[in-house]
């Protein structure tokens, strides 16, 4: 049953990724046909299963990562955000990066741009490690803070430990250069952005991305919050909305009987 659920979730995400590709103009994939695996490990975006991934700091090469060809279409930086805390943006960002890396065999860099909570770092057990803020401060280089997985073409850049102002980081031109550098080495750069209505830096960071994915939580995020979020992102390229943690008590017969929309 759990396996079936994983499969369904994977299919939903793959569908979402395809829509993202269509919306972002990347209709021709640089990579081979999606290699769909039904191992739940790659989708375990939260919990001990994901922590089981062995992160190798600055060393090791992904097994299936294809060599970067400069003639191929441009890479895409996707920001994942949500109106408030606890909507699941980090979970969706990690799941999206994992899917892209494992199922599409794409080189993916997952960037923790949420300097307030640093959720990605915590999920991967990389708390206290140097990251993006430290690179922007000039303490270390980007490869030195890029953590690569052995089992998947996935790299993780944590938020970092430098006590820089998030607003200053978001507005720095150096960040744009860093994102370009990550895009040069990865097909997809997935950025875990701060909660939009809780942080002033989220709209600025969103403008650095090629597209923004807004995660809303089922039964928690209100339409008004989403409207305010969209107003803040009027200068950004909003790819769409993903409804997270969706639960339904409607039995199948009722859905068929009343022809309920999905």
């Amino acid at each position, binding site marked *: 049953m759990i396996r079936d659920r994983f499969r369904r979730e994977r299919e939903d995400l793959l569908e979402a990724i395809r829509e993202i590709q269509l919306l972002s103009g990347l209709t021709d994939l640089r990579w081979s046909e999606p290699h769909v695996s039904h191992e739940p490990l790659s989708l375990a975006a939260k919990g001990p299963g994901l922590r089981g991934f062995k992160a190798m700091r600055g060393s090791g090469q992904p097994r299936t990562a294809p060599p970067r060809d400069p003639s191929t279409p441009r890479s895409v930086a996707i920001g994942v955000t949500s109106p408030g805390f606890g909507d699941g943006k980090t979970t969706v960002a990690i799941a999206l990066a994992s899917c892209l890396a494992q199922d599409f065999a794409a080189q993916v860099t997952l960037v923790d741009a949420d300097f307030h909570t640093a959720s990605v770092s915590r999920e991967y057990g990389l708390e206290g490690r140097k990251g993006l803020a430290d690179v922007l401060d000039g303490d270390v280089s980007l490869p030195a803070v890029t953590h690569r997985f052995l089992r998947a073409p996935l790299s993780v850049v944590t938020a970092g430990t430098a006590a820089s102002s998030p607003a200053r980081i978001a507005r720095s031109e150096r960040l744009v250069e860093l994102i370009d550098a990550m895009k040069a080495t990865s097909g997809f750069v997935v950025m875990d952005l701060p909660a939009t209505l809780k942080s002033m830096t989220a709209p600025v960071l969103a403008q650095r991305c090629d597209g923004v994915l807004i995660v809303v939580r089922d039964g*928690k*995020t*209100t339409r008004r919050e989403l409207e305010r979020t969209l107003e803040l992102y009027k200068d950004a390229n909003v790819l*769409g*909305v*993903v409804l997270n943690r969706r639960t339904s*008590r*409607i039995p199948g017969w*009722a859905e068929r009987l009343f022809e309920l929309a999905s």
Partner: protein
Amino acid sequence: MIPRKFAEIAFRRWWVLLIPTVLAPAAILAFQPHKVEYASVATAWVSRIEGVETAGTFGQPTDSQTTPASAQVQVLGDLLQTAAFRDEVALSAGLVIEGADQRAREQAGELIVKRVQVFEVGPNLMGVRVVAPSAEGAQALGAAVITRFQARALAEGAREAQTVVGYFEKQLALGQDDLAKAQAEAAAYIKAHPTAADKTKVDVDYQSLQGKVDSQTKVVDRLLENLQDARLNAASASNTASATFNVQDQPSLPLLPIAASRTEKYGYPLAGLVMGFSIAAAYLYAAYRLDHTIRSREDVAGLPVTFLGAVPELKPRRRLLVIGRRGGRNFARRVAVSIPPAPGAAEGEAA
């Protein structure tokens, strides 16, 4: 088309729909007073007296459209509205004792108004239905109503007849006085004019006086006849009352209590069901209208953004449930292994 959010709320809070829908009829059934009451019914034949326009017992005016029964029903209904009649009935039925205070008599009167029902059965047949907590009480109250009504009718008839007799007696006395005066005048004129009575001569004055005497004599005679008729009516007032209101069926002694009405049996619980369902539906609708959260694609409609998809929530299986199921399965296996095979089963399998 039902919005998905509304269906979601309804299935999530199905108990909100269920509880009032079940509780409201149950509460009505539980708290509805189950009164055991008995009904006693009496019927009476009422008729119109020949030659008398006012057919009612009390001589109330009637028109050609009003039947005797409806007239009597109206009379008895009017009487029941009077405190004096109710007091008489209450006293007669034993609801109050002689010398009871005003409050007790008022309460008994209200009870009588509630319990006594007068109705028309046919053009000449009226019924009296009395409801009481006991069969004997219903019968006694019914009998009291009819008895007091008959007594009132009789008394009223007698009073009317006596009034008429008194009137004619007065008129007769006056008429006789006038006659005596006229006769005295005529006698005095003859005394003064002895030839006036001679029929060969015409005396205009005498003839005038004599005409007056004759006319007054006729008046007196007519008054005497009317007085005799009035006395006859007064003497036969009881018989007249019996003829116009004749009880055919005395108040019955009910053997079984009144069956609960359909309204009490089904109507009130059904009304409770409808009310409970309405409350639940109103609550769910309010919850739906007040829920501004995003739950489906419909909730994003109208916004300048694409709905990409939904990620279902993953819930780990409950550990205790898994352990319980595993333990139960192991126990079943152990029990199955411990059961010895039936004799001859091995041979049967081999065959």
